[in-house]
């Protein structure tokens, strides 16, 4: 874990120190930051090799005919700390989830940090520790990383880009273009918790709520689902743009329509309240610990049961059906019994007064 010999006379001053440009300069200060903060937190064999890349063994599934997956996401969230998580745990969960949404087992993560000059070391440590915890809990190690420091005013505290790789078990083929008319559309829980939790921390919006972000790593839930039903057609996590935008993506990719039933879509009352207040629609609000599953109708009950048996899928629900539609509309039967289009998010969601 530690270097053969003490390289730095004084340890980092985590309590009072701040990131300066030398921490990204490639010299001894950077080396110290990497050792005392990143390597200390993430501590795993591949990372501890301290090479510019991590080398590790090929997982057994690959040798038995599995496929590889790779995904990346940048995390630029503000505020950095929010009820139920922070940018660090989010950067692990989000990327683990994008790997898992291929039906894959996540193998490892990389983490690229872009830090603004002046960022408090104490916040950095809090974030890195949270990331390390999330990674350990998920059993997906951060095997390699990178740190860049940008001048004050040329960043926003910290940005994290994580990349994940994983292996799809042999025989599993999950993809956004596999939805077919007649397929069932399931969600693993309530919609909009993450987005509302984050918005509640924005001073300018000025509201309080007990809602926590749902940020969570979903790969064990996916593993259970794939074990029960290897032939899942589509999995996707409804993050930015929420359920609505994500379903539109899938509808276009697969060339099907999707018909939702409003009253079946689980939304917490507080999330409804916050959305009313801000003039937003919960279907467009981000989730970070939920998934959409599309499967043949005959598998829906099994998958719902498996999801509900998992702690992260307790509120799972069947929310709609794929239909023939060359226009790939996502529509919804409303609680009033009428119908509406559930369109892509136009632009980004802005709080409204009218």
């Amino acid at each position, binding site marked *: 874990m530690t270097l053969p010999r003490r390289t730095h006379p004084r340890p980092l001053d985590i309590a009072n120190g701040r990131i300066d440009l030398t921490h990204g300069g490639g010299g001894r200060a950077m080396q110290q930051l990497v050792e005392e903060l990143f390597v200390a937190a993430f501590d795993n064999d591949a990372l501890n090799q301290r090479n510019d890349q991590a080398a590790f063994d090929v997982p057994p599934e690959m040798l038995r005919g599995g496929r590889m997956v790779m995904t990346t996401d940048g995390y630029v969230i503000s505020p950095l700390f929010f009820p139920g998580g922070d940018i660090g745990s989010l950067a692990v969960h989000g990327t683990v989830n994008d790997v898992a949404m291929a039906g894959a087992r996540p193998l490892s993560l990389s983490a690229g940090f872009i830090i603004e000059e002046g960022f408090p070391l104490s916040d950095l440590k809090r974030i890195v520790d949270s990331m390390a915890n999330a990674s350990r809990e998920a059993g997906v190690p951060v095997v390699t990383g990178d740190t860049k420091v940008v001048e004050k005013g040329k960043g926003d505290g910290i940005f994290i880009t994580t990349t994940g790789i994983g292996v799809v078990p042999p025989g599993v083929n999950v993809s956004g273009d596999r939805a077919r008319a007649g397929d069932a559309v399931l969600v693993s829980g309530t919609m909009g918790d993450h987005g509302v939790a984050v918005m509640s921390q924005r001073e*300018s919006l000025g509201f309080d709520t007990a809602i926590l972000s749902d940020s969570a790593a979903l790969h064990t839930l996916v593993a259970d689902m794939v074990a029960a039903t290897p032939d899942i057609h589509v999995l996707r996590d409804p993050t930015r743009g929420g359920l609505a935008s994500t379903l539109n993506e899938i509808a276009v990719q697969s060339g099907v329509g999707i018909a939702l039933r409003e009253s079946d879509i689980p939304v917490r009352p507080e999330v409804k309240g916050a959305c009313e207040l801000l003039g937003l629609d919960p279907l467009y609000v981000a989730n970070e610990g939920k998934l959409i599953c599309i499967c043949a109708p005959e598998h829906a009950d099994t998958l719902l049961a498996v999801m509900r048996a998992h702690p992260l899928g307790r509120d799972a629900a069947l929310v709609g059906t794929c239909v023939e539609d060359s226009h790939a509309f996502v529509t919804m039967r*409303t609680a*009033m019994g*009428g119908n*509406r289009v559930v369109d892509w998010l136009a632009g980004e969601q802005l709080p*409204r007064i009218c």
Partner: protein
Amino acid sequence: MKYIDEYRDGGLAQALARTIAAEADPARTYHLMEFCGGHTHAISRYGLEDILPANVRMVHGPGCPVCVLPVGRIDAAIYLARQPGVILCTYGDMLRVPGSKRLSLLKAKAEGCDIRMVYSTMDALKLAQDNPDRQVVFFAIGFETTTPPTAVALKQAQALNLKNFFVFCNHVLTPSAIAQILDSPEVRVLGTVKLDGFIGPAHVSTIIGSAPYEYFAEEYQRPVVIAGFEPLDVLQAVLMLVRQVNQGRFEVENEFARAVTRDGNSKAKALVAEVFELRKSFEWRGLGRVPYSGLRIKAEFARFDAERHWDVPQDSPPDNKACECGAILRGVKKPTDCKLFGTVCTPENPMGSCMVSAEGACAAHWTYGRFRDIKAAPDSKVDP
């Protein structure tokens, strides 16, 4: 949520719809205009068209203060945002609305202007207090509902003797716009469109009360029902209008009695009267210049008036010539009658007022209702 969930009961909605169907005379058509975007939104968002009988046709009115603001006023706001030292702040609704040359406040911000979203006029005041070396301009928009909060802010700015707070006032009056629509040749003279009744504003009426509508009911001999913005409120108002039409009545009825009185909010009205005065006329997107339909800041508060402090351009670039908004607002045409609908004109790049916010007739149809066109004409040009 109390006073919300009860008014969104699906079972009651179905029952109300059945009553409407039962009472609506199959031999005639009911053209009912909802003036407010709030009602348009409820109708589209809940798909109420699907449960109303085919002979009850909802005509979407001018919608919301965002939609009716002419391009020139957006341009003027961008002009203000570009003045050195200015922080321009406004409600989130305004940020995406395009002015001329497809510029919007959001794009001006991307080009470097300091533009902030506020949730309340109190936030705008705080911005001014927190940035004493900057000039904070609040881009004020809104109907009678949104005007009193601006009046409170101006009074407060005066009390605090703020030197760096300004309001760019774009507050407008709904009754004048309703009159403009009813006075149009199509409605009044030619009789090409029958507007058989009106659903009156919900929250505007909490301030102005129901009394101002009495003149319309009388003068134009049309029934008015003031209604809340929940789906059951809308359905109930439709039912009440159908009944008035059937009975040949043209009264002002108040479905939203839980929040609206005959006289409205006198405290708020007094504040508005203290701070604002009528403009001789004001341009409405889709309606043109409407006499006595807008407010400006009174002389006593002149030092907070952005239009007096800066030389705000007064241009009024026209909407796209092919835009049918005027006709749509008067119930003469439907969005799909416009050849720009969904191709050149979409919510991301609106060409006319009806496409600007989700409460406009075109945007509401595009966003929530366009699947119906496909049922009508499968594989038409409409894209997913």
